[in-house]
């Protein structure tokens, strides 16, 4: 059963914006790091078809959507069902 306690929209943004911002920059920095590693070690480069990379890109698409269950949808990306 859903809880009856619900934060106000402003409270959610105030409480979590900085954390979200930091996580997004971290993801961007990690993808940049991978690009540099791929460029430096071409023979060992991670291909765009790598399942982990595919997951990341699909997850970013989910984030852009207006689905109200984004966290669940991202988790489902890992499932074969």
């Amino acid at each position: 059963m859903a809880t009856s306690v619900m934060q106000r929209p402003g409270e959610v943004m105030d409480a979590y914006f900085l954390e979200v911002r930091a996580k997004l920059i971290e993801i961007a920095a990690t993808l940049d790091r991978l690009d540099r590693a791929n460029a430096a070690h071409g023979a060992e480069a991670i291909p765009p078809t790598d399942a982990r990379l595919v997951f990341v890109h699909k997850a970013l698409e989910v984030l852009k959507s207006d689905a109200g269950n984004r966290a669940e949808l991202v988790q489902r990306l890992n499932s074969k069902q």
Partner: protein
Amino acid sequence: MFIIDPHCHMVSRTTADYEAMALSGVVAISEPAFWAGYDRSPAGFLDYYRQLTEVEPKRAAQFGIEHYCWICLNPKEAEDLGKAKEVLAEMPRFLTRPTVLGIGEIGLNKNTPNEAKVFQQHVQMAIDTWEATVEATRGSSDNTCAMGKHHLILIHTPHLEDKLKGTRMILEMLKDFGSALDPSRILVDHVEEHTIKMVKEAGYYAGMTIYPVSKCTPQRAVDMMEVHGSERLCVNAAADWGVSDPLQTHRTMLEAKKRGHSVETLMQVFYNNPAEFFGQSPRFKLKPLRVVER
């Protein structure tokens, strides 16, 4: 491995933090003057400068750590020009104290005209009071300020406001001082991915602040080191009264080590770069170290 933390607000930390830092290899700390979390009266600043120059060196010394500091009115309190004038008038007498490395952390917070004005006044003071400080300390045991043409300057760049705009404004203002300023005697702090290049290319020292939510993470700091080079680059925790950790500097060193960076590179970033920058003031006693293979 010995570490110099170039930016840590120890007035906000417990004595146990000094002990933890000493146990983790910190041998020197530089503490810029900053915002206390509330706006102080001019008298409050004088007490704060006494705390920085009299109390903290003693607390640090208990653990074999050398404590140095910087004097200024921080940008968050620069909006009140009347107060700024009063505080700036008192600053020169503190600049002659034996553990003061220079003027800082000055800069911008919200990039306002008043902040810019007070920033320029501080820079002018760094130039104007230099000769007087040399004279005041001539013949003293520390032979302070025997080199250079202005006080060392440590600069704060905005965090969550527009850092890019603020950093550009700061570099433009510095440029306006022309040959009166020597870029190698200025450290521009809190650089991130979008500001590090312009700071290093202009010849300044650059500081990366490891404060994961609002500033930078160890991983991103090592990325920047790899992309922009380790020359004139320093790492600090800027630990203060917020959710922060003085050992973030160490976590950054560990991240670099895990990626395979050499002992020489680690020593350069975490010890020698700050030692070389601070060493431009004869008050700073530690000398750069060299790795010798046997």
